[in-house]
C-alpha cells in the first residue's frame, strides 16, 4: 500500500499494462466469436447482449476484433520495441566500446537518420515495402532504433568512468565480461524507461500507418485498421471508432504511466 502511495504512476501503469497483456494473451481464448466471421444482417449493430461492443460494417463482432487486435497491435509494438532496443544496444554499445573513428562514423550516420523525421521514414518504408505485418515491423523499427543507440552509447560512455567499472578493469576483467557483468546491468534502467515510453509511441505510429492504408492488410484486426474502417460510419455507428480509439488510448496511457513510474523508481534508487 505504501509503495502505491509513493509511486501511483507505477502502480496504475503496471496494472493497466498487465491487464492489457492478459487480454492479448487470454482474451482470444475467452471470446468465442470469430473476429473474421461476416454476418451481414448484423452489420453496424450497436452494443447489445449478444455483441457487447456491437458489430462492424460487415457484421463482425467488435469485441472479438478488439481482443484479437490487442494481440496484433500490442504484439507488433512489443516486437518492434524489442528489436529496436537490440539493434540500438548493439550499435550504440559497439560504437562506445570501439571508440575513436568507428564511434565518430557511427554517430554521424545516426545523426543523419535522426535528421530524418521518424514517422516519415516509416511511411516511406511502408509505402515501398508494401502492406504486411513483417514490413510494418521493419518500417517501425527503422523509426526507433536510433534513439536507443544514442542512449546506450551515452550511458556506456559515462558508466565506463565509474569507479566500480575501473576497479573491474584493474582486476583484469576482459571487455566481454566488463560489458555483460558491469555495463549492461547499469544501463538496463534508463533503457527500460525509454522502451516503455517507446511502446506507447509505436502503438500510435502503427495505428497511424494502418489509418493511412500502409499497415497490416485489412482483414487483419489491428486497432489502426479498425479505426480507419470505422471512420466512414462515424455518424451512423460511432461505436466502430470509439472501441479501437479507447483501446489505443488506454494502451498508450498504460505504457506512459508505467514509463513515468519506472523513471521515478530509478531516479530514487540512484
Amino acid at each position: 500500500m505504501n509503495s502505491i502511495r509513493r509511486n501511483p504512476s507505477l502502480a496504475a501503469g503496471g496494472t493497466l499494462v498487465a491487464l492489457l497483456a492478459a487480454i492479448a494473451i487470454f482474451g482470444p481464448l475467452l471470446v468465442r466469436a470469430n473476429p473474421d466471421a461476416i454476418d451481414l444482417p448484423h452489420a453496424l449493430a450497436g452494443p447489445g447482449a449478444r455483441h457487447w461492443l456491437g458489430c462492424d460494417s460487415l457484421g463482425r463482432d467488435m469485441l472479438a476484433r478488439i481482443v484479437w487486435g490487442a494481440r496484433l497491435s500490442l504484439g507488433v509494438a512489443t516486437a518492434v520495441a524489442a528489436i529496436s532496443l537490440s539493434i540500438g544496444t548493439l550499435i550504440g554499445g559497439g560504437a562506445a566500446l570501439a571508440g575513436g573513428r568507428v564511434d565518430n562514423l557511427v554517430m554521424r550516420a545516426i545523426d543523419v537518420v535522426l535528421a530524418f523525421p521518424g514517422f516519415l521514414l516509416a511511411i516511406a518504408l511502408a509505402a515501398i515495402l508494401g502492406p504486411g505485418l513483417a514490413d510494418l515491423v521493419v518500417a517501425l523499427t527503422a523509426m526507433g532504433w536510433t534513439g536507443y543507440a544514442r542512449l546506450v552509447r551515452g550511458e556506456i560512455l559515462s558508466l565506463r568512468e565509474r569507479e566500480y567499472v575501473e576497479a573491474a578493469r584493474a582486476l583484469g576483467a576482459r571487455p566481454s565480461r566488463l560489458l555483460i557483468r558491469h555495463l549492461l546491468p547499469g544501463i538496463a534502467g534508463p533503457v527500460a524507461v525509454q522502451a516503455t515510453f517507446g511502446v506507447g509511441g509505436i502503438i500510435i505510429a502503427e495505428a497511424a500507418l494502418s489509418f493511412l492504408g500502409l499497415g497490416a492488410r485489412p482483414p487483419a484486426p489491428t486497432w489502426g485498421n479498425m479505426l480507419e474502417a470505422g471512420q466512414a460510419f462515424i455518424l451512423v455507428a460511432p461505436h466502430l471508432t470509439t472501441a479501437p480509439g479507447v483501446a489505443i488510448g488506454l494502451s498508450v496511457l498504460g505504457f506512459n504511466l508505467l514509463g513515468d513510474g519506472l523513471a521515478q523508481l530509478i531516479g530514487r534508487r540512484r
Partner: protein
Amino acid sequence: MIRYLARRLLALVPVALGVVTLTFALIHLVPGDPVSAMLGDYAAPADVAQMRHALGLDRPIGQQYIGFLYGLAHGDLGQSISQHEPVARLISERFPATLELTAAGLLAALLIAFPLGLIAGANPGGAGDLGAMGFAILGISVPHLYLGPLLMIVFSLDLGWLPLTGRGGLAHLVLPAITLGTALAAIVARMLRQSLVQVVGADYMRTARSKGLSRRAALIRHGLRNALTPVITLIGLEAGALLTGSIITEMIFSWPGLGRLLITAINNRDYPLVEGCVLTFALSYVIVNLVTDFLYRAADPRIRLE
C-alpha cells in the same frame, strides 16, 4: 552570433546531403520495384522496359544519383506520373497549406499548454493541478486519429460551430490545429508545471515575495521567465514532429497540403512525386530544427553560442 549562424549553416550541408541521399536510397535501393508496382504484375515486358527507360531507372545507380542531385540543384524534381506536371510545381502549390496548418498547430499547442501548466504549477497538489495534469495525460494518450473525428462530430456536426473539412478562412483552421497541437500541448503543460514547481523554491522567488510581491505577481514576473528555458527547449525538439504529424491531420480533415499529396502519390504509385514530397518534408524538418535551436539560444543568454 553571426559566426555561430554561419557555422551552423555550414554544418547543415552534410546533414542535408545525408537526408537527400537517404531519400534517394529509400526510393531506389529498398527492394520492391516501383515500375512493376505501377504497371501491375501482368504488364508486358516491353512496357516495363519502356517505363524504366522513361524514368531513367535503367541507368546505373551512381548515374541516377548524380542525375538526381543535378536536378535537385536546378530545382527540378522530375515529372509526376499520375498528374503529368512537374513535381516541384505540385509541391510548391501544396506546401503553404502545410506550413499554415503546422504553425496553427503550434499556436494551438501553446494556447492550451500555458494556462494548464500555470494553473498546475502555481498550486501543485491542488485541485487545479490534478485537473490540468489529468487533462494533459488524456491529451498525450488520445491518438489524434481519434481526436480529429471526435472534434468533427461535436463541433461541426452536432453544434455546427465550425466547418467540417477543407481549407478556407480562420474557422477552417481551428479543429485541425487543435487536433495537431493537443499532444504537444500536453507534453509542454507537464514540462511547464514541473519547471515552475522547481522554480518556486528558488532563492530569488523568496526575495521577490519578501519584497512584498503577491504570489501571483512573483510567479508570473519572476518564476515564469526562469521556468521557460526547459519549456522552450522541449518545444524546439518537438516542433519538427508537428510537421510530420500534419500528414495524419491533413488526411482526417481533407486539408490540401503536402501530407495529402504524399499519401495520394503513394496510393497512385507515383514514385517521383513520393520522392519529392518525402524530400521536402525531411529538409523542412532539418530547417525547422535549426531555426528552433537558434531561437532558443537567442532566448537564453546563459547558453553560450560557442
